[in-house]
């Protein structure tokens, strides 16, 4: 007797194959789904790794910057701690050497600016009245003189003051130059010019 299988070939093989493992076949979308999920998660992992590495690098950079800044800050503080003494020392030379008035030059300017008809009677350096209470007392220069009356009617003290104001050397040291007094007398006119530092 001849046995004949009328079933299709595939339908016959599948159950046989399935019967070897689980006894049933697994739908294809499940392994594909797993593969997709693993892929997505792998991407997520890579992303998280990238983020973590990037943050670590940023932190390293920041730490290095912070270390440098701290060093700079410490250096600046160390230097600044020495600065007050250095400032005091420099101030001694700045006020006494660099800003010193050369009186030979100033008296030379006074001589050059003095009008021909004027005779000086006094040049004195005193403390300015306005700055008596201030510790750093400003000094003012008083120039006294006279000119003969009669033929010289023009204001010689005004000429003298203007010339002093126009003298760059003198005006640099004494920016405020004013006629303090004018006293016309019978024979002569006495005057005083006040030159102030402020």
């Amino acid at each position: 007797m001849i046995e004949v299988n009328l079933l299709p070939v595939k339908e016959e093989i599948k159950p046989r194959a399935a019967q070897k493992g689980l006894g049933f076949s697994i739908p294809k979308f499940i392994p594909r789904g797993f593969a997709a999920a693993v892929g997505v998660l792998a991407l997520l992992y890579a992303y998280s790794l990238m983020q973590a590495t990037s943050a670590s690098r940023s932190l390293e950079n920041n730490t290095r910057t912070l270390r440098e800044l701290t060093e700079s800050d410490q250096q600046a503080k160390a230097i600044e701690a020495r600065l007050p003494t250095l400032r005091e020392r420099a101030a001694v030379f700045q006020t006494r050497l660099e800003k010193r008035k050369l009186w030979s030059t100033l008296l030379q300017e006074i001589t050059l600016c003095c009008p021909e008809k004027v005779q000086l009677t006094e040049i004195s350096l005193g403390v300015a009245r306005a700055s008596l209470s201030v510790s750093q007392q400003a000094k003012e220069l008083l120039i006294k003189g006279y000119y003969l009356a009669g033929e010289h009617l023009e204001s010689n003290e005004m000429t003298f003051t203007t010339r002093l104001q126009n003298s760059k050397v003198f005006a640099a040291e004494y920016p405020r130059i004013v006629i303090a007094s004018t006293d016309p007398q019978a024979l002569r006119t006495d005057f005083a010019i006040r030159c102030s530092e402020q």
Partner: protein
Amino acid sequence: MRYTKEQAEMLALLVLMGCAIIVLSFLYLVKPNFTRLALSRKELTKTEAAIGKLSPAPVMLAKAKKETEELTATVEQGEKAVFTGIETGSPLSELCVQAATALNLKPAYGEQSNKRLLEFPERAADGSQATKHYDEVSRSMDIRAASFFDFCRFLGAMEHANPGVRVSGLKVDSLTLEPQSQAQGKANANIEVTLLGIREPRQGGGDPAAGGVVAALSPDVFDVGDKRNPFGPPGGSWESTKDPLAAVREMLKKTKVTGISGASLLIEVPAKSASGQDTVRSLSVQKGQTFALGQAKVKYVEEAGDRFVFEVTEQKVRFTIETNYRGVVTTLKEEEVK
């Protein structure tokens, strides 16, 4: 495909197990990353805050360094310029005496006062620490009946002798208040001169920044040309502060030696014609003979080859000129006659 109930349950269980394995593995792998990320972010926030706080530090450091450099330069320059070792045997008196002697002035000296300006510790090159002092020495003096111009030259000599010298007090009075007096520009002066210096002697000795007072008495110190002495009578006598030798120097430079005849020297010196034009004057001078050169009297002393020596007798200065083959002056040397 159709599954039996058992098969479906099995399949579901398998899927769940697979998901669980994947998710757990993922979490296991990814957790350290997130932990690292969280920690880093936290630290980043902290460091950024600290950086923000310290961000002005480099600017401050640069500013502090710049200021230190500037101040150090000022201090070094100042310390190099001023006298050292001024506590004992202050050089101020020496300067005053030198300048007064050079100008033939006889000041009445007041007492010398010392002022301590600054005291600070300084580390020496060998590492030892010592205290350093900046001091000031002041001296007042009266100069009676001196020419105002001489007084100005005296101040100029003092001021140019050392940058540490400054005039801290000044009063110049006319000798008389009478108009048209015969005081001829003389005045009484009361001044206070102050010298800034370092108390400690300079390390390793050497010249303590000493300036030459007499050398500083050059015409540049106080030069008002032919300007009238302002303490003199108006329109009265004039006192020139021009260097009397300047004209001689200029004329000797323009002098031409035209020949030598025995002991006689033939020269052409610059002169002015009656109309004010520049011209030359031919002279024949013998050794030891004095001739007029501008306003000065000049003596022809000797010759040696191309070198000719002249002497301005009043100022006791000897000039030596060297000429080229044309007799034109190439060099002019000046020395004091001892």
